[in-house]
């Protein structure tokens, strides 16, 4: 296929930072999980009781999948990585395929290639190769991580096989979804929806009597592979078959459509603009309207679902080690309150991703020249900056409020007050704001630094566990703004960190604003 090799090397080169960073993060997670478990549970009996307590909690099984062999150290250690973190492997594959197919077509760069001596199928096939190569790289590095963390080699390789399988299926999902719409964001949203449905099928199958549902989802296959105890290699063939089917389907769909077009035609828009669409803030709200709605719905739904598991937790986590684990995450206090605090702290990090997306998009607007067009109207620099800052900061506060309110409703019947649950979410706002402010500062210094928001989210998220694992001094973990927030409702609310974080965020936002007014645009 003409141009395939060149195109693939070029794409791999363009995405080397994304692939490298993602691989490194996942490998560190694998190493940390593998290395931490042995010290966490001193005896085999401790491990069995920890595994049994996970299996007994529908919430944890829904999140991580069941532990099929409670005597297996590997299965206990890699509970989270087998299904939950594996979502990230699938997400990487989808992101890569989307990036090198639909995004290229939307930007018009694919047309540039179309005029060269390149086979029309080559871009899609090359994107599939990039997705598969990255999946293989992630899987092998993950295996090295678990082996370094002290787990058996054979199990590590089978486990890597499950990640490779999910990466290949993700490649297929990304390839099919990229054919559907002319809008890259719509394609991404459809793919994310597919992953959510697959995850949900498995969660339902694992927690209810309808175990066959788990067999409909690649995430279920990863658990059923039993990588660490009694491997069933043929399960990986399911991944492979699904991936091949999806990729063939994508190629057929691609052959039936024009370059740049979607299978689902773009609906025409209004011929005139709404009078409300008259300033930079209205524009930015319109640009993010769809994702705001989706995020709000997701926060409400996941918040209510997560909170619904809280009443059942008291009877389950009866081993000391599991309790310690929860307490470390959620602070000292009643178990249910601890669980609420732990769930909310994860939610805050996830919601920060929305912030990173909004700020990152602000950088892209400038890079593509749209900010220039807006600033050539009577829009001031301050207005343009405020439009991004308000959607990022306001959006974060809104999503945490929605999450808190939904959790308060969902935890009905638990021994935690609704007010306490809501407060747990709201106290996170200043910490998220600090990350948002730093991301804004990066964009204000240079538009190409817009990716800083994502780097900060990942860095702050990993800082705590890494500092603990590597026994770094306390101030290292303290660099993360999330670490200073009171673990409400398990602990009482400390106002000092809230005030300090808010002041810090304000100061950084003001610095960013000042910097943005002073620099060249473009």
């Amino acid at each position, binding site marked *: 296929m003409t141009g395939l090799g060149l195109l693939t090397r070029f794409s791999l080169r363009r995405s080397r930072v994304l692939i490298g960073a993602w691989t490194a993060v996942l490998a560190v997670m694998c190493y940390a999980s593998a290395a931490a478990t042995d010290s966490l549970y001193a005896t085999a009996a401790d491990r069995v009781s920890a595994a049994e307590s996970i299996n007994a909690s529908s919430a944890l099984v829904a999140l991580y999948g069941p532990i099929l062999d409670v005597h297996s150290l590997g299965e206990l250690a890699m509970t989270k990585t087998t299904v939950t973190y594996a979502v990230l492997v699938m997400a990487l594959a989808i992101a890569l395929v989307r990036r090198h197919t639909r995004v290229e077509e939307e930007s018009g760069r694919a047309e540039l290639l179309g005029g060269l001596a390149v086979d029309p199928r080559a871009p899609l096939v090359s994107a599939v190769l990039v997705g598969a190569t990255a999946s293989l790289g992630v899987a092998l590095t993950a295996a090295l991580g678990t082996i370094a963390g002290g787990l058996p080699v054979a199990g590590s390789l089978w486990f890597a096989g499950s990640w490779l399988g999910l990466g290949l299926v993700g490649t297929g999902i990304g390839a099919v979804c990229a054919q559907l719409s002319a809008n890259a964001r719509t394609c991404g949203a459809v793919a994310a929806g597919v992953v959510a449905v697959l995850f949900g099928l498995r969660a339902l199958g694992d927690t209810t009597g309808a175990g066959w549902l788990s067999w409909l989802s690649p995430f279920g296959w990863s658990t059923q592979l039993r990588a660490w105890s009694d491997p069933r290699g043929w399960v990986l063939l399911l991944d492979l078959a699904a991936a091949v089917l999806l990729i063939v389907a994508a190629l057929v769909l691609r052959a039936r459509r024009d370059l740049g077009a979607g299978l689902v035609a773009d609906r025409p828009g209004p011929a005139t603009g709404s009078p409300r669409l008259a300033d930079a803030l209205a524009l930015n709200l319109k*640009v993010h309207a769809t994702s705001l709605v989706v995020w709000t719905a997701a926060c409400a739904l996941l918040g209510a679902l997560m909170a619904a598991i809280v009443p059942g937790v008291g009877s389950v986590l009866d081993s000391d080690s599991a309790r310690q684990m929860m307490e470390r995450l959620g602070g000292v206090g009643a178990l249910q309150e601890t669980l609420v605090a732990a769930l909310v702290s994860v939610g805050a990090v996830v919601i920060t991703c929305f912030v990173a997306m909004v700020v990152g998009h602000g950088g892209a607007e400038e890079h593509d020249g749209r900010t220039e067009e807006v600033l050539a109207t009577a829009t001031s620099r301050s207005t343009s900056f405020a439009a991004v800052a308000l959607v990022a900061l306001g959006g974060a506060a809104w999503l945490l409020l929605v999450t808190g309110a939904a959790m308060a409703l969902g935890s009905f019947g638990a021994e935690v007050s609704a007010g306490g649950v809501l407060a747990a979410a709201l106290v996170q706002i200043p910490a998220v704001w600090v990350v948002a402010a730093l991301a804004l500062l990066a964009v204000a210094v240079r538009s190409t630094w817009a990716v800083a928001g994502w780097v900060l989210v990942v860095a702050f998220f990993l800082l705590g566990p890494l500092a603990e694992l590597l026994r770094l001094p306390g101030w290292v973990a303290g660099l993360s703004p999330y670490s200073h927030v009171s673990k409400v409702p398990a602990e009482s609310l400390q106002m000092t960190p809230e005030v300090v974080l808010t002041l810090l965020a304000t100061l950084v936002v003001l610095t960013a604003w000042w910097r943005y007014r002073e620099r060249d645009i473009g």
Partner: protein
Amino acid sequence: MSESDVIRIRGLVKTFGPTRALDRLDLSVGGGEVHGFLGPNGAGKSTTIRVLLGLLRKDAGEVRLFGGDPWAEAAALHRRLAYVPGDVSLWPNLSGGEVIDMFLRMRGAPANHPWRAEMIERFQLDPTKKGRAYSKGNRQKVALVAAFAAPADLLILDEPTSGLDPLMEEGFADCIAERKAGGTTVLLSSHILSEVERLADRVTIIREGRAVESGSLDEMRHLHRSKVRAEVVGAVPDLGGVPGVHDLSVDGAVVSCTVEPEGLPAVLTALTAAGVRTLTSSPPSLEELFLDAYRKDPVG
């Protein structure tokens, strides 16, 4: 140069790292004039416009727009102008009509001016398409319609017809002529010489970030050699010795050369003495002026 100039730039310097993009550039555009801003890619046209719009900060020199400081008073000054960038980027999920109205409202201009419908008609734009569905030419049309859909004191157009077909270029020329008649000032950056020659009252040619020629086309022509071709009856006169004559060639009774303005009287006298059968003298085209400006020794 007068105080009433809409655009007045003196000694403008802008550097990007080690690159000196603008090197003591001068540019002045009077009220109501269509000013052609000429130069090849990379000469600094877009950089000048972006300084003029307050998007880039100048390193040295003086820049006035409507007598104000384009950096400090950008938003207020932009109420009086409309801008069409060379490469128009649109929002993927906004229709062309939405973008046009948004630009108009952001400028503080009415979105329901009768010109809006007229321009959409004239440029044959489908305003219901989403941003991602437009071709380069159509994206350009969206920005052009937004610029022409309501009155403005100044139009800043950065290579506005790149991507337009010849029919649309014609429509664009009509628009400029109409707005000029209405008193609008136009800064038209371009490397399409015929377009500028037809539309512009005055022209500035820039090269390596510096204005190398500026003035009305007539003035500039006066400063440059005319092409003279004559067929004589008698003996061919020796024009080689006449000051200001270049590129002399003789083919039988036909003599042709290029002549600097001050050499013309002497050439005509010599030709008349020899007895002229036919005589053509053509002023330099803008293309020749342009090539002339670029043929000189490197500036600086």
